[in-house]
């Protein structure tokens, strides 16, 4: 049952990613595919938050599975990030390498900071809830 809910949530996560990526691509003025960056950084923040909360509030365990592993796992994507990065790198000219490094490196740095922020915020909220 939990597995079925997790898989279904992943489907909705993937559909949300498809929709949001399309919406962002229409208004993106940058030479970097911004949709995947926004999706992966926001997903990392939310999974950090959920993981931080669940560390101190064990009741959230199943929700962490469905919303974290399922929805956010399906929402964020590593494969598209890799393919977009290698496409940027394989274009001609000296700008290609700079853009690819900015895309892959920038997304990684922002996702790591976002996940850390989420973890910290989740623990703060859980402890405030437990203490108050």
């Amino acid at each position, binding site marked *: 049952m939990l*597995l079925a809910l*997790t*898989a*279904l*949530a*992943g*489907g909705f*996560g*993937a*559909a949300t*990613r*498809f*929709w949001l*990526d*399309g*919406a962002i*691509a*229409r208004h993106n003025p940058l030479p970097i595919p911004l949709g995947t960056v926004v*999706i*992966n950084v926001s*997903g*990392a923040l*939310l*999974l*950090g938050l959920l*993981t931080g909360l669940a560390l101190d509030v064990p009741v959230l365990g199943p929700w962490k599975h469905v919303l*974290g*592993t*399922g929805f*956010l*796992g*399906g*929402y*964020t*994507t*590593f*494969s*598209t*990030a*890799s*393919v977009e*990065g*290698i*496409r*940027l*790198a*394989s*274009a*001609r*000219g000296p700008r290609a390498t700079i853009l690819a490094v900015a895309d*892959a*490196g920038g*997304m*990684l740095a922002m*996702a*790591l900071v*976002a*996940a*850390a922020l989420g*973890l910290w915020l989740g623990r703060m909220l859980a402890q405030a809830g437990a203490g108050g």
Partner: protein
Amino acid sequence: MGLTEQAPETAHPAPTPVPAAHHRPALLAAVLLGGVVGTLVRTLLESALPPGAGAWPWTTFLINVFGSAMLGGLLESLARRGPDRGLRRLIRLGGGTGVIGGFTTYSTFAVEADQLALAGRPILAIGYAVGSIAAGLAAAGLAICAARRMVPHPTPSPGEGR
């Protein structure tokens, strides 16, 4: 040169408004169904082979690197077979965006890297973070090259964008 795949969007406005791909229910449904399958396989693998605390998360690493290769190979093969419409677009969105996109995960990857650092393994955390990105890029690039060799280019049709 540059990013030719984005050119058709800005070439000229279509006289009859065709809804964008991400607004079409059938295509959204294909991504959703694919995402269910991809997430199911990832969840089964992660629960069968859970990462140990403070250890390199091999399961996520291999999922992400393998998925990067799969997506690179799939997209290149489809692009070489012809323009992105009909069944080819359905396979790209259902199989690529849905199944492979849902199979791989960036959020779990980022949280795992942070948790390695928080567990007092900063070198391992950096190695996992940078190593995953580098391996993913290399896997996608190799798969794209392999697809170029294996899938013959279609006969050139004048007037097509690619």
